């Protein structure tokens, strides 16, 4: 894993769905969650394709934000092409949301990217901040004041997404570039997690569980306990927390 970065992940099919259509990437400097859609296992195929295109970028030491944008565009085309070639996969698509270390002006920066309604949060100085804007009708209605955030949680527009890879909606990712700050922690998750857990509970777990893999596991466990109405996936990425650069040998201390 890249210097100063530790990460861990967990995923669960949940209590209602027959299969897990989420895919995730824990690379050396690139991390992502993809939530697939489309029947007959096609959603799994689409989300795996999204993640595979990002994985191909991981490990490059000169990664740029536009490389991430290009990989997502390629994934979009590949998923569309597969949908055309295989009738069983027609109409499949995926969200793609994540975080990567890129080089800008000679120094490392994070790029946060998002297509769809999976999310990236940042947890630092005991404050949880949502870094992405959901591409969903509910989020658009909240933005215009037609719904409150609380109403949006129960709105019938909640699951109508306005951008995704592979389907007939725009696929352009939002991107946000900023410098890393030692001690920060990121959570990448599918909507199966945020649909079950409120921000307070997410923050409490990120505060209490120091090891990234254990924190991801605890978040997923709680979301499944709370209902597990969808597949649940979490990736936790720590930056500059001291200690070793490893995915699974973290000291159990609060950051």
């Amino acid at each position: 894993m890249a210097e100063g970065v530790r990460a861990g992940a967990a995923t669960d099919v949940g209590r209602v769905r027959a299969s897990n259509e989420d895919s995730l990437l824990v690379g050396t400097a690139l991390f992502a969650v993809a939530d697939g859609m489309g029947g007959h296992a096609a959603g799994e195929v689409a989300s795996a394709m999204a993640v595979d295109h990002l994985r191909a970028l991981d490990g490059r030491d000169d990664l740029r934000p536009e490389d991430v944008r290009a990989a997502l565009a390629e994934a979009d085309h590949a998923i569309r092409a597969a949908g055309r070639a295989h009738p069983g996969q027609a109409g499949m698509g995926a969200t793609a949301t994540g975080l990567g270390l890129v080089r800008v002006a000679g120094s490392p920066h994070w790029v946060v990217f998002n297509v769809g309604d999976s999310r990236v949060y940042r947890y630092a100085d005991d404050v949880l901040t949502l870094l992405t804007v959901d591409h969903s009708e509910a989020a658009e209605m909240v933005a215009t004041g037609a719904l409150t955030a609380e109403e949006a949680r129960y709105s019938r527009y909640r699951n109508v997404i306005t951008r995704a890879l592979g389907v007939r909606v725009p696929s352009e990712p939002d991107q946000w570039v900023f410098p890393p700050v030692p001690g920060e922690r990121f959570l990448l998750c599918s909507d199966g997690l945020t649909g079950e857990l409120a921000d307070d509970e997410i923050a409490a777990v990120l505060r209490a569980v120091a090891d990234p893999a254990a924190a991801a596991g605890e978040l997923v466990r709680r979301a499944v306990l709370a209902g597990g109405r969808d597949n649940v996936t979490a990736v936790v990425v720590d930056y500059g927390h001291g200690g070793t650069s490893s995915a699974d040998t973290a000291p159990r201390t609060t950051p």
Partner: protein
Amino acid sequence: MTGYVPGGAVAVVADRTWLLLGVAPGSDVVRRCWELVRGGAGLDDVLSVIVHEGFRAVGSFALARHVAEERRVVLRGAAVVGLVGADGVPLELRADGVATWVDTGLPDDVVELWLAAGEARGAELPLERGVVVAGRVVARLAVVGGGVPDQDQPDADETGWSERVDETVVRHSGSPDDTRHVFAAGAPKVRAVACPARHLNPEHAIACRVCGQALPPQEAFVVPRPPLGVLRLSTGELITLDRNVVLGRDPRVTDRGADAPHGIRLANQGNDISRNHVEVRLDGWDVLVVDLGSKNGTTVIAPGWSPQELAKLIPAILTPGSRVVLGDGAFFTYEVTG
């Protein structure tokens, strides 16, 4: 093409937006709704006006809009909305027994749409745009959503109209043009016109800001603001102007949430760059540059001009091609792209 049948309610029609309001024609609500609709506002804005006035003033209403960024029907009270899909199947929407209102999406392949409230008497008359006393409004949308379906996507799985609560579905997209532009998260809405190459431009522009073509006469429309160009850093990278950008030795931006600026860390030999040195700010269609109170100042070199030192904390218009110098060897150039 829109028509109306005279009646007891008030119809407000403009730009693929149709309102039928159960109010007195002289009501202030009518005037304000007309101002909004004429200006390209969405149904949320219209709803706020009605809600503000109270349901005693506007008992029944039907609102419909069918443009790329909003395909939606809202109705309340005794108002009825009917629609006919591309398959010829008619469907009626009512708000019987609903305390607030019914609010739902419209499929993009609607062929005909009608709104009714109260009595309607007499022959149907044409109405492209304006305010009339009516009991019924009929919109025929023969050419819908920019025409041909996207061949990329079979429509079999798309549910469009149905109740869609548990499965994630994708929204029926508008015209194929939707994918032409990159829209930033939470980008503010701007009024725009398009050049023949579909580049978006400010409403009153004479020539395209990207390709320089003359802009044909047209009605402005409201869109999320497109990226206004890029910053080309002295190290070669491009930063997309889809949100504000703060550049400096170590800018901190993440505390401000998803609408915060990009933060770009610049270092140089002389080490004379401040932590938060300069910000490129997007204001409507304008690109501004602001020195954030840096220790050693910021210099702007506009094409054909001698270098100008920025006054601290005072935004200045940044013209395309301008170079902004933060310190020895650390600079960026603003370029307009499509």
